[in-house]
């Protein structure tokens, strides 16, 4: 974040990958944790939630970027919220049309995408200052990063909590599910595990890099 955040960023691979690795919304920025913990009890729910968020992130990013010169600074947050709420409503209808069971499984958390800080954060800190293409690519990266993070949790929790993956039985009937992972506390345990892993890898990488610069 050393560069002036107001300067439009040139399009690069990093525009896309920063949301997946360097600034992963869940594992690095710890944003939007409410759906991360709440609807990752199965891999299917996690994937659906991730894709719904990805869609809202993409569409609102593009629209905010398109309108960035029109929206007066004083009412920008109100405008972003209206735009985000619009796409959340669209996603809500779309999921109801695709599968009512899925809609029931995700429950109130679809509507709550409106208050997901990842989306408002992207609109405010990126889409409103960059071109449409950049905003699209960046939102795609963030959305993919968010979806992957949700999937990481969902896979672990479903395997341990139900003994299944995407509702496919993995182990025999003798498998005793570790029920706590299907329950809300399991979300915290799984998230802690992944955060630990991420922090460990990042630290190792940083150490390796500083060693390289020392040698050079």
């Amino acid at each position, binding site marked *: 974040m050393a560069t002036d955040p*107001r300067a439009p960023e040139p399009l690069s691979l990093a525009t896309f990958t920063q949301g997946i690795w360097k600034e992963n919304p869940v594992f690095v920025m710890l944003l939007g944790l409410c759906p991360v913990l*709440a*609807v990752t*009890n199965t891999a299917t729910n996690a994937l659906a939630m991730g894709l719904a968020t990805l869609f809202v992130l993409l569409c609102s990013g593009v*629209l905010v970027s398109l*309108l960035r010169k*029109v*929206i*007066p600074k*004083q*009412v920008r947050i*109100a*405008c972003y919220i*209206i*735009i985000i*709420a*619009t*796409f959340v*409503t*669209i996603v809500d*209808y*779309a999921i*109801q*049309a695709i*599968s*009512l*069971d899925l809609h*029931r499984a995700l*429950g*109130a*958390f679809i*509507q709550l995408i409106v208050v997901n800080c990842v989306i408002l954060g992207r609109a405010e800190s990126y889409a409103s200052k960059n071109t449409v293409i950049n905003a699209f690519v960046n939102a795609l990266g963030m959305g993919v990063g968010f979806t992957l993070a949700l999937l990481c949790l969902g896979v672990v929790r479903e395997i341990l909590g139900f003994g299944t993956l995407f509702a496919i039985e993995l182990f025999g009937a003798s498998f005793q599910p570790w029920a706590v992972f299907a*329950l*809300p506390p399991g979300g915290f345990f799984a998230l802690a595990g992944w955060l630990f892993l991420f922090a460990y890898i990042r630290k190792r990488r940083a150490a390796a890099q500083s060693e390289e610069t020392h040698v050079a």
Partner: protein
Amino acid sequence: MSDETPNVTAPALPSSRKLITALAAIAMISGLLVAVTFQVTAPVIKKNQQEALERAIFQVLPEATVAANFQLEGGQLTALTAEQFADANVFAGFNAENQLVGVAMEGAARGYQDVVRILYAYDPAQEGILGFTVLQSSETPGIGDKVETDDAFLANFNPLDARLNEAGDALANPIITVKNGRKVNPWEIDGISGATITSTAVANALNESAATMLPTLMANQDALVAPKGTD
């Protein structure tokens, strides 16, 4: 997070008209997008809901093999054809021998987040509620949605007493939720501790629906016949 620094004079505030125009324009774009999506998805959602309702009928009436549609309105119970499914509010289930196994009806009450809509099965022979299933709810996952899965809660419905008074115009005893472990009467629902509001919502939905529907339904019991033989 703000870009402004105090020693720089703040930029002049744009006229209110500009702000209002911008907000109104964005709200209009939003409205248009939502309206279009609603138009496109509404028929699909309606079809999904009907299918879900059909599945729910056989779920609350597991012994039923056929369901007949009825409409209860203004003290009248009218038989509807299968095509008039959307207008029906009473679904009678019959087993393979064409005997009435129960009647499925909808109830709704305010829950913790939003309205909880349920479909419950009523057995006119036992004058009791056999069970229910949730059609729509936004209750807290892991807490409020336990009303569907908690075995102790579901054990209330075997059956839950919902008999009418002697005049036959109201429930003899209102269906209420009591605190977990305090159930003494067969018309009381033993609530789930921690999910009191949703437990109460289920009781309210049952009570309200049963109180309005059952007097007419029981008075017109004879109209509940299997659809076989009619055309």
